[in-house]
């Protein structure tokens, strides 16, 4: 029982990282029907920014987190502007392949500029463990969980309550009709990339604190897992992505807990295959017919 509770806590911490990442995938997909495979690398950029600014300027956690979110938001908007916007009217497969290209560019660009070696993320928050009823939770786990939940609530407020959120939801349904009521789709798409990338940047700093190590390829596997989380939740659905993220986190720690650590990645991919067979629209996805 204790072990199960312990694993749930570990799973939720890891899951909130996946959830933050999955939100970016699902928002971008919702709005321009692109699987942004470079999203995991934006998370890596966030972690590297956190590493840089903490080591260089000795800032605290909040400053590192917020500045990483701002930097990755701009990185995301820049990627959209340079790589995807010129392909807006091209077939979707063209943009998809470009996304893979951007991903390789960021991974190898960072390796080239700063070296491919793994480095220790500065521990800007001293780790403490709290134990109650035999269950241990670290302050870093709490920090991850609380930060992720605050960011998700903010995201929900932005989407539901602001004018940009209304515009995002309108563009997601019908870009042309939205333009014809005075919404500039370019602004909305750019904003969506910024928002999703800021969440990825936050996830990058959080994972740096949690796992203590970062490297230029760190975005690959979590990126794919977060993509699976978005698909499980129903790609295009914002609450779905959050739920999918937590589920994947729980699944991964669960598989580790029963002694199958070597298969934790495989388990996630098995879930992807099963979901695609049984419930292709995901848990909260709408089974929308393709527009002809």
């Amino acid at each position, binding site marked *: 029982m204790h072990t199960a509770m312990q694993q749930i806590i570990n799973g939720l911490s890891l899951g909130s990282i996946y959830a933050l990442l999955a939100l970016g995938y699902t928002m971008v997909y919702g709005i321009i029907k692109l699987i942004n495979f470079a999203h995991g690398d934006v998370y890596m950029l966030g972690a590297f920014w956190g590493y840089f600014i903490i080591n260089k300027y000795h800032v605290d956690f909040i400053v590192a987190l917020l500045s990483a979110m701002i930097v990755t938001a701009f990185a995301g908007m820049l990627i959209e502007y340079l790589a995807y916007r010129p392909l807006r009217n091209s077939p979707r497969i063209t943009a998809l392949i470009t996304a893979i290209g951007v991903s390789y560019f960021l991974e190898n660009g960072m390796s080239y500029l700063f070296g491919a070696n793994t480095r220790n993320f500065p521990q800007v928050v001293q780790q403490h463990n709290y134990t109650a009823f035999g269950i241990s939770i670290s302050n870093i786990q709490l920090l991850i969980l609380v930060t992720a939940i605050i960011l998700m609530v903010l995201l929900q407020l932005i989407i539901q309550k602001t004018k940009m959120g209304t*515009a995002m939801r309108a563009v997601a349904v019908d870009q042309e009709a939205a333009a014809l009521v005075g919404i500039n789709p370019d602004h909305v798409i750019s904003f969506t990339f910024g928002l999703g990338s800021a969440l990825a940047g936050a996830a990058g700093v959080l994972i740096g604190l949690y796992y203590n190590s970062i490297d230029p390829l760190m975005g690959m596997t979590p990126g794919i897992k977060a993509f699976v989380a978005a698909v499980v939740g129903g790609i295009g659905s914002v609450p779905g992505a959050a739920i999918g993220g937590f589920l994947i986190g729980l699944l991964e720690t669960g598989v580790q807990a029963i002694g199958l650590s070597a298969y934790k990645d495989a388990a996630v991919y098995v879930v992807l295959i099963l979901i695609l067979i049984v419930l292709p629209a995901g848990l909260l996805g709408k089974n929308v017919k393709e527009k002809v």
Partner: protein
Amino acid sequence: MSSLLQVEHVSKIFGGLKAVEDVSLHVEEGELVALIGPNGAGKTTLFNALTGVSPATEGTVTFNGVSLDKKKPYQVAKMGIARTFQNIRLFHQLSVRENLQAAMTHRYKEDFVSSILRLPTFTKKEALVNGWTDEILAKLDLSAVGDTITANLPYGTQRRVEIARAVASDPKLIFLDEPAAGMNPEETADLTALIRRLQSEFGLTVVLIEHDMSLVMNLAERIYVLEHGKLIAEGTPAEIQNNDAVITAYLGGGVHA
């Protein structure tokens, strides 16, 4: 005095096909003008050219004294041109209110921080937008369905919501693309009354594409007739009904042995 909408020598060419050829027309402020013609005459293509969706190949369009050349659809919308579509294109997963509010985003400024933190300026802005929404809903008899997801509404009501959304963008001129398509006689009668009110109560200039001739003859002050991309006639409903070229276009030319 110049016209509200001035279209001069507009052509739209797709590959070798001239969908719209050398069309010149004008719409005065406050007018209710209809554009008719057989299927495939280029009516919707002309609408698309005028709203920046698919810009004209040649010719100039001036709205309110400003050229619309190279204006993107959202810029055209901000200048005060709204439209509805032949096949309804609402934001289906959103409620009626949200559909209208999506059309209002260019009508007010928003300070992001105050929206997130729900500061007083945000509450004030929210009250303003809700006020606009309530007013349009009430005027178009949609108050009862304000919170309904538009996909769940009956067809006739969806058409009405689409018109309401166009009104919500605060236009001077509204293009209606076959608003009566698929409507039963009762709904068409309601629609006729509604279009009249757009002109009288909302002070809008209306340009209408429609196949329902009773509706057109009933409503329009002036009619343009398009056939094979060219304007073949212009006049009052009475003039158009007696125009030989129009009768030929609709009923086919006389067969001569």
